[in-house]
């Protein structure tokens, strides 16, 4: 380039003219656009405008929409996913999420839970040999569904097909299993299940009823293939220290507003129809003798009588009995109970 500089003389007219012409073009178009944007202004949703600002503006069409403005419009009014912008990358997604207020805090995260322990496996009782479209929705419509329990899982995997995150799998017993890591709580499986066996539960609640049968106890036992039906006996409701369980139509249900994950119900259930994910991983209570004043409050709240000790004497936890429900911890006036 520099060599060239020396060898060529610069002609003013060769440069001045193009500068003039293209500059004039620029001025004209600049003015037209500026004026037009005022004259032909149309009101749009401020969020749409914000997103347009965030989007790259390359109008490449990779999102499948008609340009960036079209995509912004679709995000706000058409329910389009926010991660379709290829040139923008993850930064843009995050910014759009902010504008749309779609950031959900992790503590509120919900995951799907299947309320059936059957799952169409070999042991399930069948009413007939089903031959037909292999989807639950279709099978449920043929003679009331192929499994003898009219509440339970038919095992034709509508939920798995509905899950775009591959979060549902089948375990060795033929049960449908939800991978809580992968589950985003989108609710697609909830909609897909024709028997309404799936619902969304806060991720930090780990005790679930694994049955949806509203049959009476005897019938439920007869028809259930997994032999873990809820028979509506009510033992769990009685055991629950926080009254989170209620029995309606021969079926227990847990109120997750109240549930404290103690797992008492699961261990008490005669048909093992309550699943406790924390079993074996719970910490146990320990009373620090230093601060214990022997008020007996902890012993009173303990649902399994694992704490013993006389009034005004130091109390002790029987490790063999403690189930780690943590009920005693908040009750201790001296805050000397710890979970270890």
């Amino acid at each position, binding site marked *: 380039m520099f060599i060239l500089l020396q060898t060529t003389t610069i002609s003013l007219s060769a440069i001045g003219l193009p500068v003039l012409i293209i500059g004039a073009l620029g001025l004209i178009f600049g003015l037209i656009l500026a004026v037009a944007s005022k004259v032909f202004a149309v009101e749009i949703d401020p969020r749409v405008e914000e997103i347009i600002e965030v989007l*790259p503006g*390359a109008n490449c069409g990779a999102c499948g929409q008609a340009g960036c403005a079209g995509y912004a419009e679709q995000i706000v009014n058409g329910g389009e996913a926010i991660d379709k912008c*290829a*040139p923008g990358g993850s*930064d843009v997604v995050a910014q759009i999420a902010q504008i749309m207020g779609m950031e959900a805090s992790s503590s509120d995260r919900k995951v799907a839970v299947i309320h059936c322990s059957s799952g169409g496996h070999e042991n399930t009782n069948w009413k007939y040999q089903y031959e037909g479209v292999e989807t639950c929705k279709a099978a449920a419509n043929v003679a009331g569904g192929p499994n003898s329990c009219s509440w339970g899982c038919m095992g034709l995997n509508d939920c798995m097909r509905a899950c775009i995150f591959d979060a549902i799998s089948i375990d060795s017993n033929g049960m449908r299993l939800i991978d809580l890591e992968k589950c985003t709580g989108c609710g697609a499986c909830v909609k897909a299940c024709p028997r309404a066996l799936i619902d969304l539960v806060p991720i930090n609640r780990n005790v679930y009823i694994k049955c949806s049968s509203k049959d009476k106890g005897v019938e439920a036992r007869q028809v259930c293939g997994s032999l873990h039906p809820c028979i509506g006996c009510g033992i769990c409701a009685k055991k629950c220290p926080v009254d989170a369980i209620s029995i309606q139509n021969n079926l227990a249900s847990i109120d997750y507003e109240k549930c404290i994950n103690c797992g008492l119900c699961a261990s008490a259930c005669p048909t093992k129809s309550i699943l406790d994910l924390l079993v074996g991983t719970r910490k146990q209570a320990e009373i620090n003798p230093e601060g214990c004043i022997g008020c007996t409050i902890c012993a009173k709240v303990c649902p399994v009588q694992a704490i013993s000790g006389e009034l005004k004497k130091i109390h002790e936890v029987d490790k063999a009995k403690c189930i780690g429900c943590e009920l005693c911890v908040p009750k201790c006036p001296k805050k000397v109970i710890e979970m270890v």
Partner: protein
Amino acid sequence: MKFTKELTKGFVKDNPIFVLVLGLCPTLAVTTSVINGLGMGLAATFVLMCSNTIVSMIKNITPPKIRIPIYIVVIASFVTIVDMVMAAYLPALHKSLGLFIPLIVVNCIILGRAEAFASKNNVLMSIADGIGMGLGFTLSLVVIATVREILGAGTWLGMRVTPLSYDPMLIAILAPGAFITLGFLMALINMIKEKK
């Protein structure tokens, strides 16, 4: 550290063709031979780097209403420079790339990067981004061109690499072959991703 990250992301993670699927027109049109792909890629890299630099420099003085026209003008200038320089010094390549040199202007990658990256980052990062993305683009072009040239002409960079008995599969360097080759390459990448 960040500089290297911006520089290398275009190779695999944010590869403009295989991952972002941008700028397909030149990708398919010029990859009939490796040399064309290389030339196109480098031309685009130059434009990308320069426009990113300038856009990043002027980011504070561009009024939002005419942002896009200004960026287009900047990009178009560099494209024209490439066009002229290439015509002067690389006439053969200039001829075979033909129409697609001026069309670099409308390559989504370039305006996209200017908007999405350069207008929000400092000059150094923007240069890194431009070079990285450009080289990623070039790399992809060379990969596609390699497949097409070997299959369709039996050569690589003009050198014969197949036995003489190989009757070149012409379709690979024709239009349908361009689409199908890229389709299969993308499917291959998807497959590798799934395996992971």
